[in-house]
């Protein structure tokens, strides 16, 4: 469970459990070691001998964890892909170029949708991936992995989220898609999809989250539309190409059961309008 949890805490006591050594070596070498911490627990207030700590794994303490709970109840933060992925940084650069507009920019956004969906699949395989039988080139059948469809609902926020959502839809080809328009009065299709009880994962897609007003509006409305019996099970995933820093700090705190994934977090407080507004750039409506 240490490896499959969001965070694994390796508990060391003053007797330095020898059976941990091979596990710790593997953990330090693994790609998920950023999720692992070492924790010392004892009955004495004296700190553990520093020689007992293992290199390569961050040290944690229970008191700090309690502070984290106070400051950020649900503990998760916005996943900023550019921080850890060079591919994300390259893609993010493409979205910011002034010479790419219209269909060329839409294609980049579609790429972003595919990229973020792949990250989502890696983060939530239990919820988003299933086994299915396929026909093999050698003439037999084999059991392989595919993305879920009936349990996934993609909701692009019009219009900025539309090109990205095409990329998401490619990754979840059998999922339903509902185009969210703030002006739209009739949500009966959406209500029908949510009350049917098959949807467990809603992927909300928008190209930019500034202060987060639009996304908050959609999240609040959508959470209200989910029948109460299904509320616990349902997960909202928010995908965006860029999110402002302040929104990144507060949204996860306000929506503890939603998960936020962005190509990059921006500390640029400038809000696009006219020729710099993403919607205008995508659809040539400056």
């Amino acid at each position, binding site marked *: 469970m240490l490896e499959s949890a969001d965070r694994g805490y390796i508990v060391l*006591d003053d007797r330095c459990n020898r059976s941990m050594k091979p596990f710790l070596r593997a953990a330090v070498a693994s790609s998920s070691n950023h999720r692992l911490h070492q924790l010392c627990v004892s009955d004495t207030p004296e700190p553990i001998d520093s020689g007992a700590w293992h290199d390569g794994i961050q040290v944690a303490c229970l008191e700090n964890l309690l502070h984290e709970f106070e400051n950020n109840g649900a503990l998760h933060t916005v996943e900023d892909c550019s921080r850890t992925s060079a591919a994300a940084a390259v893609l993010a650069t493409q979205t910011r170029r002034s010479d790419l507009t219209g269909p060329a920019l839409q294609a980049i956004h579609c790429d972003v949708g595919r990229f973020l969906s792949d990250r989502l699949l890696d983060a939530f395989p239990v*919820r988003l991936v299933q086994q299915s039988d396929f026909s093999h080139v050698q003439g037999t059948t084999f059991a392989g992995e595919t993305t879920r469809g009936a349990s996934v609902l993609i909701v692009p926020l019009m219009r900025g989220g539309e090109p990205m959502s095409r990329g998401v839809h490619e990754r979840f080809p059998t999922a339903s898609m509902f185009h969210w328009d703030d002006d739209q009065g009739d949500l009966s299709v959406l209500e029908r999809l949510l009350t049917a009880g098959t949807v467990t994962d809603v992927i909300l897609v928008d190209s930019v989250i500034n202060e987060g007003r639009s996304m908050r509006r959609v999240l609040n409305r959508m959470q209200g539309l989910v029948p109460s019996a299904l509320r616990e099970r349902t*997960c909202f995933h928010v995908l965006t190409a860029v999110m402002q820093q302040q929104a990144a700090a507060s949204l996860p705190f306000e929506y503890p059961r939603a998960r936020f994934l962005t190509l990059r977090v921006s500390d640029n407080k400038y809000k696009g309008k006219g020729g710099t507004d993403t919607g205008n750039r995508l659809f040539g409506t400056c």
Partner: protein
Amino acid sequence: MIRPTVVGVYSVSGAGKSHALSELSRLHPEWRCLEGSEVIEEVLLDQHGRSFDQFRLIDEEAKDSVRTAAIQKIKGFRGLTLVTGHCSFPDVSDADVTSFKDVFTSGDGETYDFIFYLDTASDVVFQQRNGDSISSKRARLNLSEDVLEQWMQHEKTTLKQQCDQHGIRFETVKNLEQLTNSLDELVIQPLVDAAKKQSKEALREAIQTLPSADVYLLLDGDRTLCADDTGKLFFDHVFEANSVDRQKQIFQRYKDYTFQAFLEVAMLYERVVEDADYNLLSEKTASAVSIYCQWTDFLGRLPENVHPILVSSGNREIWETLLKLQGFSVDAETGIRRMSLLAGNHIGLHPYILDSQGKGLVVSELRRKVGGCMILAFGDSGTC
């Protein structure tokens, strides 16, 4: 969690049943291994105040009643029972010994799930019988190799018929090695597979009853919440000091901590203590252990949206008692010092056991059950 199973090892006297039983018993402390003759002797003493040698002196009706009572003793164990038995005896009234008296009862037919016939070569049986007579361990009739061959043939035919009639799986094996392999293939592996399936389902059900939370803390028990290995402490009470560590013996059989290893330990619990003693010893062990005070402090200051779950492969009753002694409300949904408990270790008392795959299942089922929840796991070993 497992279907109580009775396995008979049949053959003629001197074929090596007792030796096989003793070897298997030594290797598998989690199996209940019984000499059929000893069970009969117990009943004889109870019912007639006689010893086993005098069994042949009582009348047929009394013999049948003793055998039926013996079968009742064999039933009722929730794990695996291995019993040695006799299908027939040579009719000593006939000087040439060409006929055999069958003693397989309908009670036997209803009790056994498997019967293995130890089809040792008749010359070996002959030698072993002579050896036994010389060392005067047991009085044996002086029978020729031919008669022994006939006797064994008769037994195999009769047993095959009886087993077909009663739906018992019947196999002949040439020696202890073949018996061991057949036991593993035909009895143990299907038992393990069925238990795995049932345990997974029961664990899934238990996980569904957990309260909703934004953050789950999955806490290992032994060597994480406390300094001790509570399972070892429990078995120290059961077995004499300096005797073989039976739990360790089972785990050492396997390269990793597999489900089968944990299942066999769960069978060991059933094997070595009665339920009342199990509860008493669990409480005794719990009262000598304490949770690290850093944990009790931390767990007493959790916000409402963070829910702790103790996930342990160890002794459930020890942890239940220990948590209560230290002021925790076990399986409470809200309140300070609440703690849910996911643990199972006893095939007779618990619907599931937890191996490391089971612990992984807790994570994946929680992720499915509660959208967007955060899971933090705490443990002291790579198998957590």
